[in-house]
């Protein structure tokens, strides 16, 4: 096996479910005085350990609420785990909801710089790539107009184009994206596959499409109630998951 790109070691994630969640100083003061502050913990990930080596496409499967998105957020560094640690070696691009950093008042071109900076690209890396991003998005005619004049399909195109110019070491995908019109959907899907196939990178992606998982993944992890239920070769895990789904 080649070197590990992502190492998740005994990660536990507890969410606080405050029964009377205080978002106001006034309530907080009242609760403090009346001693009515009750916190309930909810364990969304329980002792999860996994390794994704270089060149591996790792699928993540499990019912809703299993903790898949939470795991991706821990790996991306958005959540700090309550226990254990998640190590990522190299650059990471999370393809979670794209374009969340857009500013409607800025032009498309300005948003490319802003969004690229948010994703952690350096100036030296991004500036030479701007024209390539514009070409890829096929939005050159609109690129100097404010984003509030864009349709949602155009926004999605721009977002995908910014996120996909990079060649990250680790790619995190929560459900394969299909954005824009049919033509752009096909194009972005092809680019996604191209990115995922790169032999120097590690990919973790969540999907409910077993067909897709079998085709694309080397390994699959089945997550259930925050625990790893099973992990192994894609076919094996998908078969087991399918059998259980059929039984219930």
């Amino acid at each position, binding site marked *: 096996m080649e070197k590990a790109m992502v190492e998740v070691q005994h990660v536990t994630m507890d969410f606080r479910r405050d029964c009377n969640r205080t978002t106001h100083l006034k309530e907080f003061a009242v609760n403090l005085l009346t001693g009515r502050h009750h916190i309930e913990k909810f364990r969304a990930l329980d002792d999860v350990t996994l390794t994704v080596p270089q060149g591996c496409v790792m699928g993540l499967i499990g019912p809703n609420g299993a903790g898949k998105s939470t795991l991706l957020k821990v790996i991306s560094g958005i959540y700090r785990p309550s226990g254990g640690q998640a190590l990522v070696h190299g650059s990471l691009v999370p393809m979670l909801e794209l374009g969340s950093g857009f500013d409607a008042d800025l032009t498309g071109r*300005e948003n490319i710089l802003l969004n690229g900076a948010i994703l*952690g690209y350096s100036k030296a890396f991004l500036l030479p790539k701007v024209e390539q991003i514009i070409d890829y998005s096929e939005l050159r005619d609109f690129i100097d107009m404010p984003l509030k004049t864009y349709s949602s399909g155009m926004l999605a195109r721009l977002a995908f184009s910014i996120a996909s110019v990079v060649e990250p070491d680790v790619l995190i995908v929560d459900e394969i994206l299909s954005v824009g019109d049919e033509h752009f959907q096909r194009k972005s899907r092809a680019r996604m596959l191209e990115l995922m196939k790169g032999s120097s990178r590690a990919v973790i992606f969540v999907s409910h499409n077993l067909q897709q998982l079998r085709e694309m993944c080397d390994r699959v992890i089945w997550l259930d109630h925050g625990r790893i239920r099973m992990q192994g070769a894609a076919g094996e895990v998908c078969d087991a998951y399918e059998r259980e789904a059929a039984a219930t």
Partner: protein
Amino acid sequence: MHKKNIFRYGFLLEQLVKRNFNTKYRQSVLGILWSFLNPLLTMAVQYLVFSALFRSDISHFPVYLLTGIILFSFMNECVTLGMDAIVASGPLIKKVAMPMAVYPLSRCITALIGLGLSLIPLGGAMLLSGTPLTPALLLIPAAALLTFCFALGMSLLMCTLNVFFRDTRFLWSVASLLWTYATPIFYPITIIPAAWQPVFRLNPMYQLITFMRTIVLEGLCPSAGQWGMCLLAAALPLALGVFVFRKTQDRFVFHL
């Protein structure tokens, strides 16, 4: 975790400052002119109201007013804008990991640029009122920087509080109003009863504004005592703000 190292995010900081600056100045018709007019108009009103009371005690009263107004509203802007920075970026913070201090910091830097712009009307008022231009004016950046550090510290503290308790902004709007009156901006500290003056001198904004006035009005380098007080006024709140922000920032995401 390298994603959280703010020193790798200079480019993001630059983009955010540019964005803040654009939204501030591109959208209003008067644009940058407004940032000149705003302190001048405030000064004009205060001059009309208070000059009968205090003009005899204070030479170059318009410049006296303007230094106080400019520094105080700079601090107020840092806190008011910075306080909202994390909450306003909530949707983004839930999706991409980054050092969260870039948000309040970028807003304070935007306000600092605004402070730089408001030195132009200050210069104008100095010329018109015949305040001598001295080499001491070269120390204005030091005064600005010290005030910036204090304001950034306050901004980080209030920003943290605002993530956990959304009514912080109401608290701040009351507090900042009281603070304006408790700071000798349009009056000299000598009108405060002698017994109370030591308390008023503990106000960091009083120290910083007096520092600025020594430079601008008296044309002098502030005394060692003034430097000491202002360094404390800048360093302690900044250290506290950075400490509290860093301690709690991992939990922000659960409150957005």
